[in-house]
Every structure is written in C-alpha cells, then in structure tokens.
C-alpha cells in the first residue's frame, strides 16, 4: 500500500497553505506563531520550492538559487524566522562583470557603485546621486507606465554600458527587463543597493531545515508529497481542499502555487467574475531559466578573485531578446567556494544561470532535448574556460537544467522561475475580494519575486489572513 502522507492530519484547520516555497513557508510560520492551526501541503518530497538543492555522488551539493539576495533578508529572517537563521547570512564580496563594454569587480553597494560610475564611467557625481535617490524614492503607487529603459534614458542617455552595469544583475535576480515598469527596477535595485549582495552560509539545505524546525516548533502541520487537486469554494467562500484523496476543511487557503495554476486549475474560472478572469488571463508569466551545475574535483578550487557572482557576456550590446535567446551569449556564474558549507566536504561548485524561454524547449523530442542539454553543458564549459583554465579536466560532474526541469519540480506553469510580470501582483491581491478566504502568496509582480520579495509577500498575506479570521464573527457554541 502506498504511504499515507496525511496520516494523523486533522479534518479541519484555520489555514491551509499550498506550497512550501519561501513565501508559503513564511506565511505558514507567521500564521502559526499567531496561534492559527496551520496545515502546510507540499507536492514535492522536499520543502523550499525553488529555494532548493540537490546532491550528487562524490559529496557534491548544488544550490539552485542561493546566490544572492539583498541585505533586507537579515531583518526579515530575524523578525519572521529566527535570530539563528539571520545570523548565518553573510556578504558576497566580489561581484564581477566581464563583457565587451567593460570588466570590473564590485562589492555591489551604493558607495562602490558611485565610485565606479564617476571614475570608470565618467558620470557626474550629482547625476549618480540623483539616480540613486530617484530609484530609492520609487514605490508601488508611482507611475506604472514609465519603463526601466525610459528611466535609464532620462539619467544616462545613450550610455548602454551604464545600463548594462545597473541592469544585468537585476535581470539575473528576478528576470525583469528594460521593458518592465521602472518602479519594479527602482524597488528591487534599491533593496540590493542598500548594502550589497548576501548569501546564507551553510547552504540552502541548512536554511530550509532550520525553517522547517522553526515552523514545527510553532505548531505548523507540515506534509510533503501532498499535491492539492482542488480548492473547494461554496458560494463565495473557501470551504476545503482536496488532497491525496481527502477533503480537509479550512477557513482560509494561502496558495503559494503559481498564480495562474491557483486560479485556473485549483479554483476554476466558473467561480470567479468575468472581469477578474480576463485580468488573470492577461497576466504574463515571467521567463524561465537554464542552469548548468558543475563540480570541481576534490581538493581543487579557483582563486577568490574569480568572483562570487560573475556576469559574463560576449554580446556587444545589452538587449532583452539576446538575454533570453537559445543562442546564449550571457551567463551568470555563481562560484560556491568551500566556505559556502563550512561543515561540508570542502568542494567548489559552479552554477551557470541564464534566463530562457519555455517555448524554446517545450516542443523538442527526447533526442533533440538530450542533445540540447548536452550543447548547453558544452557551451557553458567553453565559456567558463576563460575564467577557470583547463576546466574540462578539473570539473568532475556537469549537468543541465532547463525550463522543462523547473516545470517538473516546481509545477510552475511554463517553468516560470520568477513568477509573473508586474500585472500579476494586482490579480494576486484581488483574489480575496473574489473568494472570501482565498489568498495567493507566491512569486509575482517582479517586486514580490526573489528570496526577499517572496518572504515579505508571505508576511503581508499572512497579516491579511489574520485580519480576516480574527475579525470574522465568532459563532456561539
């Protein structure tokens, strides 16, 4: 008989959280800490969503999305998780760029960027200050028509090199492009710019395990291998969820699943207003990614000067279509040195990431798909050779992940690795107005993406849920 992953689970909860990405984990933790009876359901056998890792023979542990996040994570982890988790966050000291326009290494904070822009790029100090202030002053309620491209045109007209320096890391961090609203850039850039780029020492596995421990301490009922099939709605109110053959009643659902699958697969458009459905259908998914995971042989490493994050490109110009193209010219290499896991086996691992279109991968037959993956690995090793000489001899394990891989493990529509474009946030926020007790807290709207964005969004939504449940009229018994 198959194992019952819901063994001992209650028949009813205050809140059911669907999905254990960082947004789902954080929402569950905040809700339980507030005294709610919470059930967390994860379809995969591991918690974390895209905040994940995998092991390969030889003691290699690869992180998928650990590198890197803004300083704000320290505060968010301390408040919404624990001091222990916050205390393990350390800075990535070397963010390196290498492309036909420029080559440099930066600590990626406001001071260093100001120095670089004035000395190396010849931009006037006052202009730089104005730009940083403008980016920092942006918020959600500002003009949403202006694009990031227009923002750069205003401050640095004709300076594609400056645009590249300021934009490339953000594109890596959340998939946003020059065509997205300027406010999404301003908010995310200011987050990073406050103090640099950070990482969790000990690896994603240590972080997610610490979060699991904290959630359980706060009373969350955590269940893996539980793929929710349906959210049952009666009238305009959430009643229950269907999972692994059981119906579990709940006052509220927080879906950390992809926004579109939450609306169209778990709920069903017949339960929603036409205009809401139209808006939801118009939400564009953000792009997917490819990654190549490479492990250096035991005892071998690269000099620290190689960088922690290396944005390398052979493209003469910085353009969105080039960044997404199958003909890869731009890659972000993450160098995970042995101190990523101080208690680990001392391995050096390299992960190459590139943004990619799902459509370029979805219609390949098995043979073409395998051949494309091989090409991806080979092309990546070719590009790495410049930074890690003789890399083909020194790398003992290399494999690729594609948009299909991301789709398979996260069940995100089209393998989307950064949720949705900006308009997704409005739809996500409007969901509880459609169905009482139904919330979405997943990566969306660009600004609610990335590790910090999703964690904070989980908190925002948990707060909404607590307000709803604690203000609901209590039934006399």
């Amino acid at each position, binding site marked *: 008989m198959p194992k019952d992953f819901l063994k001992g689970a209650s028949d009813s909860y205050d809140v059911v959280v669907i999905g254990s990405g960082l947004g789902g984990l954080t929402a569950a933790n905040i809700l339980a800490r507030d005294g709610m009876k919470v059930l967390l359901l994860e379809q995969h056998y591991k918690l974390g969503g895209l905040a994940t890792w995998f092991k390969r023979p030889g003691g290699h542990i690869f992180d998928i999305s650990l590198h890197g996040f803004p300083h704000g994570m320290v*505060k*968010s982890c301390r408040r919404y998780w624990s001091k222990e988790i916050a205390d393990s966050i350390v800075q990535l000291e070397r963010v390196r760029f290498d492309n036909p326009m420029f080559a440099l290494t930066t600590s990626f904070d406001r001071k260093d960027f100001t120095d670089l822009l004035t000395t190396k790029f010849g931009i006037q100090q006052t202009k730089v200050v104005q730009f940083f202030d403008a980016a920092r002053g942006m918020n959600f309620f500002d003009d949403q028509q202006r694009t990031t491209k227009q923002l750069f045109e205003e401050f640095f007209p004709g300076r594609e090199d400056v645009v590249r320096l300021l934009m490339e890391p953000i594109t890596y961090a959340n998939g946003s492009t020059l065509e997205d609203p300027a406010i999404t850039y301003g908010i995310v850039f200011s987050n990073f710019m406050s103090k640099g780029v950070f990482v969790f020492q000990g690896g994603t596995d240590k972080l997610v395990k610490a979060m699991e421990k904290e959630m359980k301490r706060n009373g969350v009922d955590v269940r893996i291998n539980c793929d929710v099939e349906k959210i049952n709605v009666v009238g305009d109110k959430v009643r229950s969820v269907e999972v692994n053959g059981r119906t579990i009643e709940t006052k509220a659902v927080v879906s950390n699943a992809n926004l579109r699958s939450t609306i169209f697969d778990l709920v069903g458009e017949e339960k929603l207003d036409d205009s809401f459905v139209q808006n939801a259908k118009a939400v564009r998914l953000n792009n997917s990614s490819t990654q190549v995971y490479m492990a250096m042989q035991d005892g071998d490493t690269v000099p620290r000067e190689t960088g922690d994050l290396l944005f390398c490109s052979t493209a003469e110009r910085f353009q969105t279509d080039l960044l997404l193209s199958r003909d890869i010219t731009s890659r972000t290499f993450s160098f995970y040195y042995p101190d990523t896991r101080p208690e680990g086996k001392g391995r050096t691992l390299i992960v190459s990431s590139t943004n990619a279109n799902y459509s370029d991968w979805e219609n390949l037959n098995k043979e073409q798909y395998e051949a494309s993956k091989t090409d991806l690995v080979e092309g990546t090793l070719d590009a790495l050779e410049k930074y890690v000489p003789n890399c083909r001899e020194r790398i003992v394990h290399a494999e690729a992940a594609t948009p299909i891989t991301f789709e398979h493990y996260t069940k995100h529509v089209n393998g989307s690795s950064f949720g949705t474009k900006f308009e997704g946030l409005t739809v996500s926020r409007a969901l509880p107005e459609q169905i009482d007790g139904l919330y979405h807290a997943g990566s969306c709207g660009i600004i609610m993406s990335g590790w910090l964005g999703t964690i904070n969004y989980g*908190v*925002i939504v948990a*707060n*909404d849920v607590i*307000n709803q449940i604690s203000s609901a009229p209590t039934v006399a018994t």
Partner: protein
Amino acid sequence: MAPAEIRTAIIDILGDIAPDEDLSNLDDQQSFRDQMELDSMDFLDIVMELRKRYRVQVPEEDYTNLDSMASTVSYLTPKMVAVA
C-alpha cells in the same frame, strides 16, 4: 488608553522594530520616514504588533495615518480608548 500612553506604546514597538534608532529626539509632527530608516515592511510590522499587543486592527487603506507620531496617536486614540 490615553494619548500619552498610546505614544509610549508606539515608542516601545518602534524600539523593537528599529533597535538602532535613537527615539528620544523624535519630532511628533514630522514623518517617521524623514527621521528614521523605515521601509514598508517596518510599517506592516507596526500594524502586526498593534494587533498582537493591543488587539487593534489597522486596515491597509488606513496605513497612511501612520505617517507621523502625531497622526498615529490621533488615529489610534478612538480605537484604543477601551484598551487597558
């Protein structure tokens, strides 16, 4: 709670949220944001702490009332009149 007590309660919450800020010279008429580094999550945390400590609900559309100490206290006074 009287306005002066509400003010003390807010200072306590701010002290926990921004432990590095000196709150002794806070100008009640001036915006919090102009005097200390507070982001939107900090404001949400103030709201969550108010609910946790005093069972006061601040709906999202009222967040603008939390701009300065003076506006916060006058907004909360009728809501917290029954709070011991």
